[in-house]
C-alpha cells in the first residue's frame, strides 16, 4: 500500500468513516513487518486489536450449573422411605390377609389375659408377692418414724402444767 493512501485511510479511520474491509486492510498492513517509523505508534493499536480478538475464557462455561438437575440417587432414598411407610401401614390396614395370625402390630384388646385358672392364680400370686416384697423394703426405711412416738411420751410431763393450772383456777 502506498503511503499517501495509507495516511488517508488512517484519517478516515479516526473519523470513524472507514468500512470494515478498509479497517481489515489497515490491520493487515500494521501487523506486517514494514511499517514506516512515523506510523510505528499505530502498530501497537492494530496489533492490540488483532490480539484481543483471540482472547477466550480460560474456564469452560457449563450449562448445567443450576438447571435443577437432582442426581438420580437422591430418588432412591425417597423411594425407600415411601416403601417403608407404606409397608408399615399395609400390615395394619389388611389384617384379614392372614386370618390365623391376625395383624402384627395391633395391641388393642390383647391385655395378656390367661385362660387357665390354675396358671392365673399362680401368676397373680407372683405379682402380689412382688408388690409385697417391694412394700416391705420400702417400709424398712420408715422405722425412724417410731422416734416420734418415744419423743411424744416424754411430753407427758407437760400434763403436770395442766394439773397445776387447774389447781390455781380453783
Amino acid at each position, binding site marked *: 500500500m502506498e503511503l499517501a493512501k495509507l495516511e488517508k485511510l488512517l484519517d478516515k479511520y479516526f473519523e470513524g468513516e472507514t468500512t470494515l474491509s478498509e479497517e481489515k486492510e489497515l490491520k493487515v498492513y500494521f501487523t506486517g513487518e514494514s511499517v514506516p517509523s512515523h506510523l510505528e*505508534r499505530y502498530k501497537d493499536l492494530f*496489533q492490540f*486489536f488483532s490480539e*484481543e480478538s483471540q482472547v477466550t475464557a480460560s474456564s469452560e462455561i457449563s450449562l448445567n450449573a443450576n438447571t435443577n438437575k437432582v442426581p438420580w440417587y437422591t430418588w432412591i432414598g425417597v423411594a425407600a422411605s415411601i416403601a417403608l411407610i407404606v409397608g408399615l401401614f399395609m400390615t395394619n390396614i389388611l389384617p384379614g390377609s392372614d386370618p390365623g395370625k391376625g395383624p402384627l402390630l395391633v395391641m388393642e384388646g390383647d391385655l395378656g389375659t390367661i385362660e387357665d385358672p390354675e396358671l392365673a392364680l399362680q401368676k397373680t400370686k407372683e405379682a402380689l408377692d412382688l408388690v409385697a416384697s417391694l412394700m416391705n423394703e420400702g417400709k424398712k426405711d420408715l422405722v425412724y418414724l417410731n422416734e416420734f412416738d418415744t419423743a411424744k411420751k416424754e411430753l407427758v410431763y407437760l400434763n403436770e402444767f395442766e394439773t397445776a393450772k387447774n389447781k390455781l383456777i380453783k
Partner: protein
Amino acid sequence: MKERAFITLTNGFKDKLYRLAKRLLVSNEEAEDATQEILLKLWRNKTKMAEYKNVEAFAMTMTKNYCYDKLKAKETGNLKIVHSNYKDERPSLQRQVEAKDSLEWVGKIMDGLPEQQRMIIQLRDIEQYNNAEIAEMLEMNETAVRVALSRGRKTIRQELLKKHNYGVG
C-alpha cells in the same frame, strides 16, 4: 431446543460475550461469571429464543446491561474493581516483553475510555461488527455509534502520541 443445539448456537459468540464483559469489567473472573450468567439466562428462556431476530445481538445487549448493572452496583457500594490480570500469562511473554508492554499500554488506554466508547471500539475494531449491528446491540442510533467510535479512536491516538513522544524524548 436441545442442549446440544443450544451449545453449538452459543459457541459461535460466547467468546465475544466474554470479551465484551472483560472490556467493561476488566477482571477475568468477573467476565467469566458474566458470560456464564448470560448463557444461563438465555438457556432458561430458550422457548422464547425463536422470537428473537438475532440471538447474538440480543445476547450482546444482555451482556452490556448485565455489566452496567455490575458496574453501577460497584459504584454505589463504593467498591473498586479489584483485579490482578493486567499481566498476560501466555508463554510468549518472555520473548516479547517490550512489545507486550506497549500492547498492554493500549489496553490501559482503552480501559480509560468512557464505557460506551470502550464497548463500541471493542465491537467494531476487535469483533468487527458493522455500525448497524452495534447500534442494535447497544440500543443506540447509527450516527451516535459513529461519533462515539471516532471520539474513542481519537482519544486513543492522542494517548498513543503522548506515550510515543515520551518514548522518543
